[in-house]
């Protein structure tokens, strides 16, 4: 994996059944593994946003992948970025034993050091939340695991936003709709 770069692929699609399947198939055909995946409704009604991370050897591979995804009828837009172009976060939850939390001050120190939060405490277990890059959430996990042990751990897929100015989806849609109208008019004229 050392010679490969982690890419973040952003995809906007119509909210139709099976879009994820269509996207996943293209990754499979190109022999690319999906590292993380996050899907949610976008700011525009009816349009979903996929954020996928994947290791690949070059921009060329990513360009081909993204074009093949973009080509699918239900996909509005697909593009890729590297970490430098992005502000990105992942969220991680850690479950630990409440008794161990109370027994020492270690956990408090770790929570402060890693800028994490305690979300829930009951007599059996405590849930800690940490957002950050992969290495940040992993660092907290490693330290917790080493000191008092982690009962359960879960990390979300990446969410990301580009730093540069990119065309807003709403502008792109407006342009498409305008073009559609022009096409319809020109067909009527002809």
């Amino acid at each position: 994996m050392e010679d490969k770069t982690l890419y973040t692929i952003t995809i906007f699609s119509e909210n139709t059944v099976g879009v994820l399947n269509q996207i996943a198939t293209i990754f499979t055909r190109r022999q690319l593994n999906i590292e993380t995946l996050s899907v949610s409704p976008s700011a525009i009604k009816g349009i979903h946003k996929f954020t996928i991370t994947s290791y690949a050897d070059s921009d060329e591979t990513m360009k081909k992948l993204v074009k093949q995804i973009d080509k699918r009828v239900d996909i509005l837009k697909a593009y890729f970025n590297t970490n430098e172009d992005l502000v990105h976060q992942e969220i991680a939850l850690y479950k630990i034993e409440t008794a161990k939390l109370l027994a020492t001050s270690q956990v408090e120190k770790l929570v402060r050091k890693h800028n994490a939060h305690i979300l829930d405490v009951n007599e059996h277990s405590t849930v800690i939340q940490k957002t950050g890059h992969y290495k940040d959430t992993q660092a907290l996990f490693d330290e917790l695991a080493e000191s008092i042990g982690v009962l359960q751990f879960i990390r979300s897929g990446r969410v990301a936003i580009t730093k540069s100015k990119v065309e807003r989806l709403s502008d792109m849609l407006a342009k498409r709709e305008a073009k559609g109208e022009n096409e319809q008019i020109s067909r009527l004229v002809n």
Partner: protein
Amino acid sequence: MKEEYSEQSTISGSEALIRSLLAEEVETIFGYPGGAIMPVFDALYDHRDEIKHILVRHEQAAIHAAQGYARVSRKTGVALVTSGPGATNVITGVTDAMMDSTPLVVISGQVASGLLGSDAFQEADVIGLTMPVTKWAYQIRRVEDIPWAVSRAFYIAASGRPGPVVLDIAKDAQLNRHPFSYKKTDFLRSYDPFPDVEEDDIRAAAALIRSAKKPLALVGQGVILANAEEELKAFLEKADIPFGSTILGLSAIASSHPLNCGMLGMHGNLSPNIKTNECDVLIAIGMRFDDRVTGNLNTYARQAKIIHFDIDEAELNKNVKATVKVLGNAKQTLPMVTGLLEKQSHAEWIEEFKPYEQKEFECVIKEEIHPGAGPIKMGEVVHKVTEATGNKAVCATDVGQNQMMGTRYFKFTQTRSMITSGGLGTMGFGLPAGIGAKVGAPGRTVCIFVGDGGLQMTMQEFGTIMEYDIDVKIILLNNNFLGMVRQWQELFFDERYSETRMKNPDFIKIADAYGIKGRKVIDREELDGAIEEMLAHKGAYLLEVVVETKGMVYPMIPAGGCVSDILLGNGHSLY
């Protein structure tokens, strides 16, 4: 809230489907009934004067016939099959159509929506199965979605880079009732089949073409799909550019055109293959640099600046890096480039192709089409058939040696005359695709070249020919071998003929059982007469020609090789 409608104002989903097909001007459907699609067949019964349904003998033939129909007629082919096995039987053809950009709408029945996901009788996950091999696949679960989905399906199948669409219709959607209204789709926000042409690209392409001393064009099926044959001809003639065709680009321009240098690729003609690695500007139009065309990419046209015209952005820079990319429909982009060019002449460069044409004729073609003595050769048969039709016929082929001989030696005067499985290489394609081609172009002679292997993959379609009296001329090149695999075994597997020899039936008797006239030819003296008889015969005809057992297709660039690896056979070498 569920809306209520009176009986009178509503129609069944099946009726809505048929009316939607009529709104899309569908005249012919190839299909096969079964449980989950019965309501549609029932509705079809009321419209049998408006839509001709051709009952094939296996669903695979329905899809291949629809492909042949679409390829000759410029229309979208339609196949209608039942759920489960009916749908899975068409998947090979759907994949074939995806590879070869053929516009198809495949309608499959599906179990009732309440049973979906329950492993019901004849249930298959058709959308999951076909998604990777379709341009669009959609499951209709509600009656009210039928017109909308059909309208989208036809728009998507035929626009942009064409391809197959699958509509999987749950049985209850076919039976339930709903008011009908139909609107043709001409816009989808997530899909742009009319990409804006970048003026800068056009100018860059024109500048490069103007500067070229040794230009070569590669013509693909994109030209035919865009109906841009005339625009291509005007472009090539004005810029005086010799060209080679991909297997699917054949027939876009007449074989006899002075700039036509023949076919590209593994079994293509010498001159365009060799000149690909000598030209200074390579102009690819509506083709996708398939590995059977390029061989080893590391030695492919490295010296050339490449201009790539295509409507599919995903093809640009996919296999070969282009100096200039021209995204758009060839019918639009070619005239824009032509308009920026002055009349050019490359007489000297074109002259350089001649020695290779001569060489190929001397080393390969002469012996193949005029052998004089010995067993009949495959190329000889194709040559005699094309001559006898005045090069005006549609040529459908199966896959293998018969296909390469068909594409090498059949000649064309008219576009949309080569029907063959290019990308997927589907054996069993030839006979049903030829049937579809005849239905799509009833006024034309359709010659189907098949081998003894491929014919037996879909030979049940003799039944369809019989029932509908479909006048196809079937030329069986019988060497009692799976010839192309045998050729590779001879060349690359030490002549170890593993599972390629076939004990064959009496094909003429089988044809006779279906009322198809047939004749078996072993002696060369009989061949001309038999071809004449076949073409003069009204109705289908099977001409079985016993050809050389160990015939070879040359020239051949071994898979992954380059032009300097070209094999000419018979002890000949290129240099």
